[in-house]
């Protein structure tokens, strides 16, 4: 009987397993393989009916990170970093703020909740089109002050070429090493605190090693023989605004659910102990929202890394100041016919998303098993 059940369960799952294996993992595998070939380097093979591909190892990746013309890809990575940072800060901050406001037992709460959540229901392509109009150089937001008799703004929202916070691409390994050193230092401190001396020692040595390597200018690794400045493209401000507008309602809903989950007794107890209303939030409510913040960061983080349609609609695919890796992947593959390089960009994106998603999946799956 029991084996029978298992067999039925297996048969039920089989179709979706097969589909997943082919259409998700099979295609990931194929993309990874293509990224190791020269597909597109030779025009006679690029679009042949049965292209002959040659294995070139990691050459496409080497070009992306150190090639002269792939400066655009590197700036795209920097763009993604800053976009993700400000997008997360914006959506989490605004979402939490809205949730706390709605938590004050306001009248018509349901109406406000719907209004704030509504942009989430729109497609990015719609949001992008709307905000493209709003951020036109001589229309939308820029002419708002004229309503009250002030002169129109002259902000070049999406078209400015200004770049701030510039740094040399060659210093990126040092920054990464310093970041890793900080993480190990934290792990060492935690291990020391829980009495695991050996582990603390290993982490401490790793910390010192990485910090030393970063501080001495990362000997042994030279990305480029010349300095290559990258920085934050100010044109992204407009895109961050649109993305935050779209998704802060969603984080508001998450936080509001979390706030409602905080038992009233806890708040009461804090108030009885003499905590101010601010203190109640600071010391009781916000710490309880930690897991929600983590989930929101992960969901928003992977949206941000994959962002494509919003920018396509707002600034177009060709506007390199607002370019991201996903757009470049499309241009490389389908305009320049350099499929292997496009696949390499896709794999870099996949690794970045995996870096965000996999630890989350691991921890949430662990939690389920325990239950």
């Amino acid at each position: 009987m029991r084996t029978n059940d298992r067999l039925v369960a297996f048969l039920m799952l089989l179709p979706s397993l097969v589909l997943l294996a082919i259409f998700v993992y099979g295609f990931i595998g194929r993309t990874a393989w293509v990224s190791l070939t020269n597909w597109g380097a030779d025009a006679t093979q690029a679009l042949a009916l049965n292209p002959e591909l040659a294995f070139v190892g990691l050459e496409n990746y080497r070009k992306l990170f150190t090639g002269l013309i792939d400066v655009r890809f590197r700036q795209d990575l920097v763009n993604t970093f800053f976009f993700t940072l400000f997008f997360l800060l914006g959506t989490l901050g605004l979402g939490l703020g809205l949730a706390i406001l709605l938590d004050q037992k306001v009248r018509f709460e349901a109406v406000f909740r719907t209004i704030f959540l509504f942009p989430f229901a729109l497609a990015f392509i719609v949001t992008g089109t709307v905000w493209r109009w709003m951020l036109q150089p001589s229309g939308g937001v820029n002419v708002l002050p004229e309503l009250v008799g002030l002169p129109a703004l002259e902000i070049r929202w999406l078209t400015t070429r200004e770049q701030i916070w510039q740094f040399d691409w060659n210093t990126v390994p040092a920054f990464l090493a310093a970041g890793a050193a900080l993480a190990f230092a934290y792990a060492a401190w935690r291990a020391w605190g829980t009495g695991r001396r050996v582990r603390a020692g290993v982490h401490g040595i790793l910390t010192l090693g990485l910090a030393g390597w970063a501080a001495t200018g990362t000997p042994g690794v030279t990305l480029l023989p010349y300095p290559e400045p990258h920085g934050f493209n100010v044109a992204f401000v407009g895109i961050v605004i649109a993305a935050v507008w779209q998704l802060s309602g969603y984080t508001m809903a998450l936080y509001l659910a979390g706030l409602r989950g905080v038992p009233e007794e806890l708040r009461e107890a804090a108030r009885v102990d003499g905590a101010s209303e601010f203190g109640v939030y600071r010391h009781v409510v916000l710490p309880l929202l930690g897991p929600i913040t983590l989930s929101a960061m992960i969901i928003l983080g992977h949206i941000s890394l994959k962002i494509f349609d919003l920018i396509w609609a707002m600034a177009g695919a060709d506007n390199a100041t607002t370019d991201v890796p996903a757009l470049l992947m499309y241009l490389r593959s389908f305009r320049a016919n350099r499929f292997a390089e496009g696949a390499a960009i896709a794999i870099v994106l996949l690794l970045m998303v995996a870096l965000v998603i996999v630890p989350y999946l691991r921890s949430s799956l662990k939690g389920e098993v325990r239950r």
Partner: protein
Amino acid sequence: MLRHILALSVVLGFGLGAAQGELEIFSWWAGDEGPALEALIELYEADHPDTEVINATVTGGSGVNARAVLKTRMLGGDPPDSFQVHAGEELIGTWVAADRMEDLTPIFEREGFMEAFPDDLIELISTDEGIWSVPVNIHRSNVLWFDPDRLDEWGVSVPNGWGEFIDETCPALQDQGVTPLVVGENWTVQHLWESVALAELGNDDYSALFEGDLPWTDLRVVAAWETFGDVMACTNDDAAGLSWQQATDRIVAGDAAFNVMGDWAAGYKVTTLGLEPGTDFGWAASPGTDGTFMLLSDSFGLPVGAPNRAEAIQWLELVGSKEGQDAFNPLKGSISPRVDSDLSLYNAYLRSAAEDFASDAKVGSLVHGTAAKEAFMSEFATVMEIFLSTGSADAAANAAQAVATQVGLGE
């Protein structure tokens, strides 16, 4: 599987009327340009009432989206019967190189196209192995547009070269608060570049660049980039947000004096804006390129494995015929490449373009697929980006050479 889904969606999208034969025409002519294609299809249907024409268009100017869709279809082994493609390297470097096109020499010989089309155009669409597409129209890239009345008002005249524009015209206009030259999104800046480069390098050196005979790092090319930088200093600072139509609107509104745009701008001004050529707007060859016609051409080819090959060949015969071209071009706002086209059907701008086409030297456009293969054309946007962000002619020249080497330009 994918093939069938695609085929099914196409069939469903255009109705299931089971005619005897079918012909699927793939293009990016929708919207303003749709009626011209429709006219051609109507002619075809009048001659072949038993054949159902499937008009598969993918919107997006210059075929930016259509080309991507076409590539996925061709890679999936599902070619349309005939597809629109820019004549020249966009066709040869992508599709002929990959051995996906049929040689059309027999059609050219049978239909008298060899005599009807100018030799230098046939050379552009041919390799040693054959002739690869039937050109249906000609557009000119190096055209300077302006409003003659406003130029009088501002006291400036059409500059004879970029030097004159930079030294005299530009400061005179800037003093009056007028944008001397208006550009739009990235490709329109590249479009301006090809006209500046043509003027500064001359026809031979310009063409040699794409044949791999003149290195991009040559001092003459670097100098052309420097001139281009000076020209860009005379343009609007909100370029990236403007489409080419919006850039054109600035001239119509009197905010800007000049722009360099292909002659589809004439079609936009006449058809969409209702302006009169010659009085409401004026044109000239872009500064320093008088006597040279930088051309691009839309054409149709025959992919290997076309499902309805016989119908596709009938279509190509119509596309190249005098009847077909004179039905199509006046609506499209382009001229016919045929030497015997009926000029009385065309407006004043197009007649002048046809005269120039007949007498001028001809070079190919980079941005519109004629001069260089797609891999170079696409990466040239990155080169332009490097120039715009660094302002360094040397950096741009080095990047362009790096791209040229990487993609094997001119091989």
